[in-house]
């Protein structure tokens, strides 16, 4: 019997696995897909929120402000791309000026450090490319940007390094109470465990209902995005928000840690499996974004995507033990979930301890990670790196300057990727303007070689996302 099974390999599940791996206990994370971080964690605004938005007194407010500091700390330790660039909430009229002041007050109550209400002139000085119609803005210097999937992967990798277990391709199909715990059936295998933590994101209601009384329903709400080329990545220097209103939180414009510009999201109710973008949704995002930053050149778009928010009936996160003793939820995690995840994880560890889990720290806990990012090396470091390992001399992704050495590194770290997008999430290959047109086949070859599988078996992303449908010249005609 293991001590804890975590259901779901998003940033919440991975954060918890990492926190649990500090202790002398057995923890297993089960994930239905072939990689961690592939649900909402990979499709969101990638913002580390300051924490002025949630209403004081909510768990959201507490986790957000705590999480803001923790994400920064984790990213430094685990070598995850992060930049504390600060955020602006723009006001365009007197009503919104008042809202900005209200957000300032909320933030003060929540304990957000360093905020300031800026005049129109001050905004323009900080951000020359924002709309001249801005009347004031809330500045929050603690806001940042992060690579969400790299954070989740780094947490999971580190946890595995410390002895925790990740079971991929393991969809949970049942959770049965047994003596002293639960029998979790995942990917056809049975795991007996003392505690279960449900971090199944958009599907967390389904998992909850397998073991605990039905207390909430997750309804998906879709947000669509544009990702723009690096040529647009320096248009703004901060995360640029609009004032929240009746119709939603507004569309943000922000640099990404990878140097691109992200624009989005809208908010539309959707089915839980609907990750499609729509012509109307994208047109809305575009129109709204141009209000904040009129000069965005959407011809430099390199990708569109959509993510799903896990909304519930309650306007707060659902974190804690259920009526079913030993079964915990981390559910209803919408924005600012990414920021809050590390704080939630620490809190859940505390709760598990209270519920009887022994938390005996490991003496050997490894709490650092180092990744070679060739393009960030100096000339001398590059020369030395190639001299040591010639694979660093072979560029695979030319748009993002990613070397074969980095890809091979990723394939031999704990929790290796098995798909082209899995490598992309770890190394950044295919993230550039050609979107993997040149490097995709090459990355596929390297994965096949390193994992010892046929090239046809290397998927684009999830299981079943086949890139190649067969070989030419094999007489295998279908028609």
């Amino acid at each position, binding site marked *: 019997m293991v001590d804890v099974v975590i259901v779901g390999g998003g940033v919440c599940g991975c954060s918890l696995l990492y926190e649990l791996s500090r202790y002398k206990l057995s923890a297993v994370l089960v994930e239905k897909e072939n990689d961690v971080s592939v649900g909402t964690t990979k499709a969101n605004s990638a913002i580390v929120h300051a924490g002025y938005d949630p209403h004081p007194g909510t768990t959201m407010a507490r986790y957000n402000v705590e999480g803001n500091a923790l994400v920064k700390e984790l990213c430094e330790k685990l070598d995850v791309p992060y930049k504390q660039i600060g955020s602006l909430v723009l006001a365009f009229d007197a009503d919104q000026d008042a809202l900005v002041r209200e957000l300032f007050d909320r933030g003060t109550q929540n304990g957000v450090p360093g905020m300031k209400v800026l005049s129109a002139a001050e905004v323009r000085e900080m951000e020359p490319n924002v709309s001249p119609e801005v009347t004031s803005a809330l500045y929050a210097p603690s806001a940042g940007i992060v690579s969400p999937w790299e954070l989740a992967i780094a947490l999971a990798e580190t946890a595995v390094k410390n002895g925790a277990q990740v079971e991929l391709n393991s969809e949970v199909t049942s959770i049965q109470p047994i003596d002293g715990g639960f029998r979790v059936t995942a990917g056809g295998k049975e795991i007996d465990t003392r505690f279960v933590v449900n971090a199944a994101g958009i599907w967390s209601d389904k998992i909850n209902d397998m073991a605990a009384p039905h207390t909430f329903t997750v309804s998906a709400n879709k947000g669509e995005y*544009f*990702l723009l080329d690096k040529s647009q990545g320096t248009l703004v220097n901060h995360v640029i928000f609009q004032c929240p209103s009746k119709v939603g939180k507004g569309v943000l414009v922000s640099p990404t840690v990878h140097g691109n510009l992200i624009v989005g999201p809208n908010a539309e109710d959707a089915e839980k*499996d609907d*990750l*499609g*973008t*729509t*012509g109307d*949704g*994208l047109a809305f995002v575009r129109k709204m974004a141009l209000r904040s930053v009129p000069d965005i050149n*959407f*011809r*430099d*778009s*390199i*990708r*569109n*995507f959509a993510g799903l928010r896990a909304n519930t009936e309650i306007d707060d996160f659902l974190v804690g033990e259920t009526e079913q003793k030993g079964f915990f939820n981390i559910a209803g995690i919408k924005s600012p979930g990414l920021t809050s995840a590390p704080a939630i994880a620490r809190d859940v560890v505390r709760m598990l301890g209270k519920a009887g889990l022994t938390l005996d720290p490991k003496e050997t806990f490894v709490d650092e990670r180092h990744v070679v990012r060739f393009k960030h090396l100096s*000339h001398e470091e*590059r*020369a030395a790196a*190639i*001299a040591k390992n*010639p*694979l660093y*001399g*072979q*560029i695979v992704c*030319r*748009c993002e*300057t990613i070397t074969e050495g980095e890809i091979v590194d990723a394939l031999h770290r704990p929790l290796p990727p098995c798909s082209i997008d899995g490598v992309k999430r770890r190394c950044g290959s295919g993230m550039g*303007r*050609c*979107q*993997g*047109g*040149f490097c*995709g*086949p090459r990355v596929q070859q390297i994965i096949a070689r390193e994992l010892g599988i046929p*090239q*046809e078996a290397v*998927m*684009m*992303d*999830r*299981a*079943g*996302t*086949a*890139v*190649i*449908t*067969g*070989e*030419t*010249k094999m007489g*295998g*005609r*279908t*028609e």
Partner: protein
Amino acid sequence: MNETLYDVIVVGGGPAGLAAALEAAKEGAGKVLILERNNELGGILNQCIHNGFGLQFFKEELTGPEYASRFIDKLADAGVEVMLGAMVLDVSADKTVHAMSREHGYMQLRAKSVVLNMGCRERTRGAIAIPGDRPAGVFTAGAAQLYMNIEGYMVGKRVVILGSGDIGLIMARRMTLEGAKVLACVELMPYSNGLNRNIVQCLNDYDIPLYLSHTIVDIKGDKRVEQVVVAKVDEKRNPIPGTEITFDCDTVLLSVGLIPENELSRQAGVEIDRRTNGPVVYENMETSIPGVFASGNVVHVHDLVDFVTQESQRAGRAAALYAKNGEPQGPCIAVENGSAVTYTVPQKIRTENVDKFVEIFFRVNFVYTNMVIQISSGGEVLARFKREHMAPGEMEKVAFPKALFPKIRDGKITVSVVKEEDAE
């Protein structure tokens, strides 16, 4: 670190780089180096296994690999040095080239002149924001071509092609011949951007329908593409509700345009023309940085490799001369585009550097019949050239005689295209 001084460094070993390097060597440049990021020379020609190359230049019909080999085979005799698997990371205005390869490590190379021959890349789904799901099975036509022709893999069985650029048309035939069913070729514009001969021999030969003024409005599929929805568009290229056609398919190929790959040029500080997305060049293919030249698809996207070769020979020759003699001097005129013309190459002409005439390349903005190309200056038409048929997909070329240069006023000429009856 390697610090050899080269006469000419050529960045890229595709058709442009090959021609530039050989011509530079022929012109007397002693040390010429090609830096090629792939493990073989020839660039995109290697995957263009269809024939039709070389009719202009070699007066015979060759496949892409054959065309490339005609140049590759001459490199050794010409004394051109080649580094394969060598990625150029930076070119500076003082012509220091930072490059690296597995074999040679990190290199800092110096050259008297540099020729930029990086070619172009394909526009992607993201660039044109096609809505819908994000399943596997959406490829740029060139990526699919690489998979099929070089690697030997099929990328799908039932295919819809968006865009009627030449690569898309070629791939329609190629996939059909390999047993796939190509259901449709869908083109946003009311005309095809590909060559007429490719419409005939790639689509018509295999009864593949071409839907002009149509676009893909939705891609559906969970893991692999399952359906695409195509709709007719109005004059403003907006989809018309109610005209949707659904195709059951597992593959979408995109042939929606090519973009010159000028990241290195931009880093170096080369002036870029917004119309071509390529460097602004002089008549000898020199960029705004003295001694840095560019030619081929990195300057403007060509339809025929033969013209890439000719243009690159000019660049290679000029690079060799620069290495020997330095910058050509003398007065300079600007070439501007007038009615119906979307860009011109070159954009600048140093009159004393022209022998008998200067060739001006350009494209038009729509399909026209019975037109006159006019080159004018100071309100006077200096030269006229008749054309029966013009299209955006077909690059135009005129030879403007040096004898007319004295008539140029205000240091500029304008290239415009007008209807025959409106010609002056």
